């Protein structure tokens, strides 16, 4: 359709397509602007915490949610939204090709991006030994020695995944103890291929055309040089909150969009859900729930209801 949509949803991950599904159920005219369909869940090999489904790949889960949303026939534009502005009656969103769309409410499901270490060699050796997607690129390290940099639950899961190819996986973590869910921590401690190097930072990726070694800030077995064939950086993610910033929506110190328990932001008619929001537990199931709340509250807002 053309004209003004009831709701525009920005983002095509679990949260974005969940919101599109629910807005469809609520009979809202819905526009979904998607830079990349699937979102962060695509990086997860096995999703085992989606209620009702014991195990499913991230790819299949994302596809299922997208197909479910499409049953309600939202308009979907594959484009990067680069600008968001308040208008008299709602919002305007402009994509990277300069095309502008209008809506009465806005749901931000813009997700997050991989965080970088920002150390020497990281950009030069990207995909030449330095990676951020174990699921995609782990296959190149069959019987090799690799390092996972980070100590979060995601880092632990990456390390576990990589053991199916690698001969040895070092987890290099700046803290004392890795911060994984207990079930994953048990798995990593029981895995003989994984060794944790704690209280250590990586200062540099070094190599001539391909990664040859890490430079550590303290010696490991007598040397600051740590020879590896590959390294996977998993130190968390940064929220994609630029559009929220443009709208003057309140962000927290991490740059995440602050929402209340109704997925409302500080700006009337603007909602947020998924990894861009200031939720403490970033999981697909949480993002989907927030998306449903955002959709329902957008619906109530359009009905003129006040809380």
């Amino acid at each position, binding site marked *: 359709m053309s004209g003004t949509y009831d709701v525009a949803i920005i983002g095509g991950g679990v949260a974005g397509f969940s919101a599109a599904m629910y807005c469809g159920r609520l009979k809202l005219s819905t526009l979904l602007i998607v830079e990349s*369909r*699937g979102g962060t869940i*695509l*990086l997860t*090999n096995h999703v085992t915490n989606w209620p009702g489904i014991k195990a499913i*790949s*991230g*790819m299949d889960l*994302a596809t299922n949610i997208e197909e479910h949303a499409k049953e309600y026939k939202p308009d979907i534009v*594959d484009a990067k939204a680069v600008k968001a502005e308040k208008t008299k009656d709602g919002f305007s969103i402009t994509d990277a090709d300069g095309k502008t769309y209008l809506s009465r409410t806005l749901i931000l499901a813009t997700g997050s991006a991989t965080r970088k270490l920002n150390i020497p060699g990281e950009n030069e050796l*990207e*995909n*030449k*030994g330095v*990676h951020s*997607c174990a*699921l*995609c*690129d782990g*296959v*190149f390290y*069959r019987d090799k020695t690799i390092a996972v940099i980070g100590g979060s639950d995601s880092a632990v899961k990456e390390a576990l995944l990589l053991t199916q190819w690698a001969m040895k996986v070092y987890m290099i973590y700046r803290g004392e103890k890795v911060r994984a869910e207990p079930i994953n921590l048990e798995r990593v401690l029981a895995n003989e291929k994984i060794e944790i190097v704690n209280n250590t930072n990586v200062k540099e990726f070094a190599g001539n055309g391909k990664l040859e070694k890490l430079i550590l800030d303290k010696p490991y077995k007598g040397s600051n040089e740590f020879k590896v064939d*590959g390294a996977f950086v998993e130190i968390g993610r940064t929220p994609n909150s630029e559009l929220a910033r443009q709208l003057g929506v309140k962000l927290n110190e991490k740059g995440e969009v602050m929402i209340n328990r109704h997925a409302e932001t500080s700006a009337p008619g603007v909602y947020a859900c998924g990894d861009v929001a200031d939720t403490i537990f970033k999981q697909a199931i949480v993002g989907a729930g927030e998306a449903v709340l955002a959709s329902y509250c957008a619906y109530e807002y359009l009905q003129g209801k006040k809380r």
Partner: protein
Amino acid sequence: MADKKIIVYSAEWCPWCHKAIDFFKAKKIPFEVRDVGADQKYAAEVQQVSGQTGIPVVVIDKDVIIGFNQPAIKKALGLP
């Protein structure tokens, strides 16, 4: 476009590879899949072709496109 030779270097478990494959399937454009997970020969070949170790890699005649980069693929194919 019909004359262009298209190769997708991929692996079964790689989500972005599936996205790339789905792209060509949806547009009914013929292509060849080279599975770097199933065949070490292709794992070596993709490194030689692209100078890096990341997948997917899409080769369209002489254009080597790293990652699932839809705009670059469309440009190489002459699609709008």
